């Protein structure tokens, strides 16, 4: 493709760029501006006040800890599913894909309410753990960090599975077979062949899930309530309840920096992994 033709093709992106400029970039710039504006003009006082408050560090800790566990749990559950989907054939593959994509059509609020029933003291998880003897008596998972992690993982799981699946299905199955004929154990084949080749998918999936988990608002509001603040819920609270735009824009910018860092880091990691393969 010639350079001139490529240049002309770039115009195809114009509607999307224009749309994003109006509904995304402009409000974002306003938000950034608001976070560094005080009564006397430019100031970083809001950021210094935020970082000087131990409560802010607790909120950031809550946000990152929950996002980390949700990502890890999604990876542990999602990776085998992605392999199974990539290796399945015919009707089974279609069924697995439908089973994974169909829940995406259900709203987060509906899911969160369903989890509320599952996570109750007399819910399925509690009753199951009592039945197999792990818990002596029914316990409540609702409005706990564990409940939030389990519920949020359910919502974000497809976003981990799909990127891994799209990479794994391109891996030639004969590579692991070749490893086996050369005497490599299943664990060795997984560690040295399958895992490195699937890494770009794992990195993308983890970046997706982490970015969404770090900024989720509705799920923590319904599953853990307002006694557990994250950066996203504190932003919402600042705007909607306290009408404190200065605090809301400051927390929103910090959240944005975290999310952008994750995307940049994951892109860099993907490229590095790609080069080393």
């Amino acid at each position, binding site marked *: 493709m010639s350079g001139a033709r490529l240049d002309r093709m770039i115009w195809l992106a114009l509607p999307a760029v224009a749309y994003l400029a109006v509904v995304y970039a402009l409000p974002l710039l306003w938000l950034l501006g608001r976070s560094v504006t005080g009564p006397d003009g430019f100031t970083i006082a809001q950021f210094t006040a935020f970082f000087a408050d131990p409560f802010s560090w607790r909120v950031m800790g809550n946000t990152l800890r929950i996002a980390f566990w949700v990502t890890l749990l999604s990876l542990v559950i999602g990776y085998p599913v992605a392999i199974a989907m990539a290796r399945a054939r015919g009707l089974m593959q279609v069924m697995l894909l439908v089973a994974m994509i169909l829940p995406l059509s259900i709203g987060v609020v509906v899911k969160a309410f369903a989890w509320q029933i599952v996570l109750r003291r007399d819910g399925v998880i509690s009753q199951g753990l009592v039945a197999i003897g792990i818990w002596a008596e029914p316990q409540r998972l609702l409005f706990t*960090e564990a409940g939030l992690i389990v519920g949020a993982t359910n919502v974000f799981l497809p976003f981990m599975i799909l990127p891994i699946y799209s990479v794994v299905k391109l891996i030639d199955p004969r590579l692991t077979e070749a490893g086996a004929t050369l005497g490599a154990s299943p664990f060795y084949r997984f560690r040295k062949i399958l895992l490195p080749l699937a890494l770009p998918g794992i990195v993308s999936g983890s970046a997706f899930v982490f970015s969404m988990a770090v900024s989720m608002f509705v799920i923590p509001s319904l599953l853990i309530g*307002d006694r557990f603040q994250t950066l996203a819920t504190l932003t919402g609270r600042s705007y909607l309840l*306290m009408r404190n735009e200065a605090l809301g824009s400051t927390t929103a910018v910090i959240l944005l920096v975290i999310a952008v860092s994750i995307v940049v880091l994951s892109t860099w990691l993907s490229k590095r992994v790609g080069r080393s393969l």
Partner: protein
Amino acid sequence: MADITKQGFDRRRLLIGTGATGLSLIAMPSILRAQTRELVIGGAASHKPWVETHVAPMFEKKYNARITFEGTRSLVNLEKMQKNKDKPYLSVVQMDDPVMILAVREGLLEPITAAKCPNVAKLKPGTMHMDGMWANYLQPWQGIAYNTNVLKEPPASWADAFDPKFKGRIIGKPMAEAYKDIDAAFAKLKTLKANLLTAYSQMPQAFSLLEQGEAHMIVGALSSFGMQRRLDGAPINMTAPKEGIFPVPSGIALVKGSPNIDLAYAYVNELLGAEVQARIAPPTFALPTNVDVPVPPGMPTNATVHPIDWAFVAENRNSWVQRWDREMAI
């Protein structure tokens, strides 16, 4: 032709007749306008059913006017008043008390006076605010909602929520009875932490947990929601603790410079009057504010209603929210 002329259809009469018809046609819209003037009211979306069923038909007939009710949120009504301050189109607003304070500060309201709204004289004490800037036309109340499958006897006191047997079974509303002594209130609230399942901001979620039995009590539950759920067959009930109950914001005010101000006064007067309150109190599960209206069946009859100083609340709310987040965190 001669016959027609004889019967009076001469040219002059025809001209007079046409002119009169034309004049009456031109005049008709203003006559129509004079007959049915419009009163635009801004209120909550949840008010629409009772306004349209119990208030509008009576008012429209009595005053030969037409009511247009714009049901939305209090803050949206405030915005409508701000945006149209120079030429208001809303005449009356029914909003939450804390939003009324903002409207008063911005000079958007016209005082309600006994001279223009005689029913003001019939109001219970503590239901007119900030020198008559707004009045409470009803008092939905906050008491304790409890699961009747779990608690066979209604809780008698707010203090029951602190009983250790309710560990993790209480849903709270960030609210303190001794709210002017904040340090004491938070010290007391902290002792509730072990029992606190969650603090609600979404009523449907809180009531769903109560109905499912995960929660045993909601302390600070809204009567209009709780009583309706009970009517719908949910295994819950509402009770007024012995210490008293708290009114929920339910204000009415006149918009400054509103069109048809006489009609606006009439509407406010009707809502503060016995006839309308007797009609709207039962379906909204609220207490009337007019002393002549009896408390509807099923509502607490002798409960002390603790009035809330909304100006004080508005002034301190942010610091309370921040303190709640820090001290009541899981």
